[in-house]
C-alpha cells in the first residue's frame, strides 16, 4: 500500500532550489539539515524568490551559499546576524534567514546573536552546531562538549560549552528550538515551525562533523567499526537526545547528561 502523504522528490528539490551538488564531506550533518530545510521550505512554502539567505564563514555557512538558488549573502566571519539585521531593517518585505555554524554564530559572532535575540529582529537563525570549527581543521568551539577532543584540546576540552537555547532565550528571544539531524523528519517539522514564526526565531541544529569530531572522538561513539562514523555519530545523537516533554517525566538519573530537544517560548523562562 502506498503511503498516504507523498513527499517531494530529492531530484525535484535539487532542481528547484539548488545551484549545484553538495560540497560537504561524506556523511556531513549539514547535508542532512539542507535536505530537511528544503523539504520544510517546500511544505511551507518559503518563497525562495522573496528570501535572502545570510551566512558567515565555516562549513555551516556553505549550506545556503553557494547551494541555494536564491539571493545569498556570504559574509565575514561572525557577522551574519548583523548583516541580516541590516537586510531585514532595510527590506522588511523580504524573508531573511541566517544559516551558519556554531563557531560563526556563537564564538566570534555571539554578540550579534544575543542582540538580535534581545531586539527580536524578525529573522530566522539556524545554527548548525557540529561542536567545533570544521573548516579550519577541527578546533574547539563554544559548543564543544567538555572533555571532547579537538585539534586544540588534545587532552580533552577543559571548558564547558554554551547552551545556545538558554543563551538566546536569556537574551530575550521569543522562540528557540533544538533538533538533532538524527531525526530528519522531526528536524524538517522543527524548521517549518521556526520559519512560521512571525518574529525572531532561533534553531540550534545538532549536526555532526564526521571528518573532525567523529575521528577525534571515535572512542566515545556507539556502534561497531563496521558502521560508518557518520552513522555512529547519528546513533550517539539518538541515544543522547531526549524530547523536553518526555524528559519531564523521566527520573533525574535518566535525565542526567541528556540533551533536551524541542521548542521553547520566551515567555516560559529558561528551560
Amino acid at each position, binding site marked *: 500500500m502506498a503511503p498516504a502523504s507523498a513527499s517531494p522528490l530529492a531530484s525535484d528539490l535539487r532542481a528547484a532550489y539548488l545551484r549545484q551538488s553538495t560540497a560537504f564531506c561524506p556523511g556531513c550533518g549539514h547535508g542532512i539539515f539542507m535536505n530537511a530545510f528544503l523539504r520544510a521550505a517546500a*511544505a511551507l512554502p518559503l518563497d525562495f524568490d522573496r528570501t535572502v539567505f545570510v551566512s558567515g564563514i565555516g562549513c555551516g555557512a556553505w549550506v545556503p551559499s553557494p547551494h541555494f538558488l536564491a539571493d545569498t*549573502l556570504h559574509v565575514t566571519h561572525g557577522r551574519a546576524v548583523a548583516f541580516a539585521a541590516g537586510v531585514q531593517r*532595510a527590506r522588511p518585505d523580504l524573508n531573511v534567514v541566517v544559516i551558519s555554524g556554531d563557531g560563526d554564530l556563537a564564538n566570534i559572532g555571539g554578540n550579534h546573536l544575543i542582540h538580535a535575540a534581545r531586539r527580536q529582529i524578525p529573522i530566522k537563525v539556524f545554527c548548525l552546531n557540529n561542536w567545533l570549527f570544521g573548516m579550519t581543521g577541527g578546533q574547539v568551539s563554544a559548543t564543544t562538549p567538555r572533555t571532547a577532543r579537538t585539534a586544540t584540546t588534545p587532552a580533552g576540552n577543559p571548558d564547558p560549552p554554551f547552551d545556545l537555547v538558554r543563551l538566546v532565550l536569556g537574551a530575550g528571544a521569543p522562540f528557540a528550538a533544538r533538533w538533532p539531524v538524527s531525526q530528519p523528519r522531526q528536524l524538517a517539522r522543527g524548521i517549518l515551525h521556526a520559519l512560521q514564526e512571525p518574529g525572531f526565531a532561533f534553531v540550534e541544529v545538532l549536526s555532526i562533523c564526521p571528518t573532525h569530531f567523529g575521528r577525534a572522538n571515535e572512542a566515545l561513539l556507539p556502534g561497531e567499526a563496521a558502521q560508518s562514523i557518520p552513522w555512529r555519530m547519528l546513533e550517539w545523537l539518538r541515544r543522547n537526545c531526549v524530547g523536553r516533554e518526555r524528559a519531564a517525566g523521566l527520573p533525574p538519573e535518566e535525565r542526567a547528561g541528556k540533551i533536551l530537544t524541542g521548542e521553547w517560548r520566551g515567555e516560559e523562562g529558561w528551560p
Partner: protein
Amino acid sequence: MPKPHRVTIVESLCKGQACALCAQVCPASVFRPADHPTPQGIMPMQAAYPEKCTACHQCDQLCPDLAIDVIAEGAEPAPLPARGGPFPRPNPMGGWVERPALLPAGSYFMSGNEACAEGALAAGCRFYAGYPITPSSEIMVHMAHRLPALGGTFTQMEDELGSIAAVIGASWGGVKAMTATSGPGISLMLENIGYAIMTETPCVIVDVQRAGPSTGQASRPAQGDIMQARWGAHGGVDLIALAPWSVQEMYELAIRAFNLSERFRVPVFLLADEIVSHLYETITIPPAVRTFERVRLPQDMPFDTPEIDGVPPMPAFGEGAYLLVTGSTHDGRGYRRTTDAAVQDKLVRRLSAKIRHHQDEIDDWEAYMLEDAERVLVACGSTARSALWAVQAARRQGQPIGLLRLRSLWPFPDTVVAAHCRGRGEIIVPEMNLGQLAGEVRRAAGAPVTSLTQVDGEPIDPRRILAYLQEGRW
C-alpha cells in the same frame, strides 16, 4: 504481485561508503556499495534491491547529498511550489538624475555633523546603522530623527562591526546606506570595509578623525586615519576618500561620497575631523542636488565586466537576480573561485583599475595663488584652513606662496600634485599626524617636501605655519 517502489541514487552525487547512511538506515537492506567507481573516484552506493523497498522514505530524507529518489508505487511525489517572479525592477538603468534638495534652498547655520547628515539624506541615503562615538555621534542622532519621516531606516547596532555589516546588508537590499564613526570604530569596521570592497558594495563611511592612537583624546581633532582609510583593510585594494574643510563641504562632499560610491560600487570614506564636525557655520543649501543612481540591470553579471576596469551593474535582493554575494574570490556570477589564480588576479586588478582608471572623475582639489608661487603648501581638511590663513598673511608680506588643497585623498591625486608642485622651491605639508600626507606628496611632487606635523590634539594654529614661512621655525 504488486509492482515495486522505485529507488534511485544519482551516483555522481553520492559520497559513497564513508557515508553510507542510506544502507544503515534502511530497514529492508535495499542498498549496497557499487562495484565501480564514479569519475570522482568514489565507490557510490546503489539501490541494489529495490524490490525490497517499503517506501518508508528514511533514506531519501536522511541523505546529506539529496541523491536518493524514492517513488512509492501508486503515489505521486508532492509537487513543488512554482518559482520565478514577477520581480520588481525599479529604475534598472540608473545614472545621473537631478532631484530637489530636501531642505528649502537658502542659508543655514548648522554644525558639520548635521550638514553631513543632511547631505547624505539629500543624496538619497535612506539607511543608517551606527554606534555612538565622539566626535561623530551627532550624525547618528540627526539621522535617527530625520530618517523615519523620509521613509528610511535608522538602527543603532551593538557595535561598529555590526554597524558596517548592517549597512552593507541594507545596500544589497537596494538602499543607499551609510555609517559614521571615529578612529576606534574604523578600526573595528575595517574587515567589513574590505568585504564591501571585495563585494563591490556601495556605502559611505564617515570618519570624524580624533586624536589617537587607541582611545586617545576623544574630543580632540587629528588627521591620523589617512593611511588607515586607504590601507586598513587587508588586501590593499583601492577605495575613495574625500576630505571636507568646512561645514559647507560636509554637506557637499557627503553627496559626492554617495555619488562616487554608487558610480564605482565602492565604499567611500568621508575623512572629516573633529574641527569641521563640531564647527557651526553659515552654509548655503542649493535648490537641487545631482545624484548618481545605481545601475541595476539584473540580467547582467553582477561581479565582472568585459572591460578590465569596468563597474558591473548591481541588482538588489528580491529582484530575481539570485545574487551570490561573497567576500571570497568569485567569478562574474559570484561563484567562489578560491584556488583559481587567474580569477583572483583579474578580480583584484579590476577592483583597483575601476577606481584608478577613472581618477579624472574622482580627483578633487582647489588651487590658491599658485601661479607665481615659489613655495607651495599642500594640505587637506581643516588644516587647509590654517594653511590658507598663513598663505594670505604671507602674501600680504610679499612672499610668493600658494596652497594646493586636496579635497580627494584616495586614490591619491598624483597627477594633480605633480602638476602643481613639480619644479617649485619647496613643498610644505602641515598636518595633524606624523607625516602621512607628506609621504604621499613626497612620492608625487617632484620637488623637495617639508613635513610639518602636529599631534597635540589641537588645531594647527595658522600663526605657527606663518612663522615657518617667515623664519623656517616649526
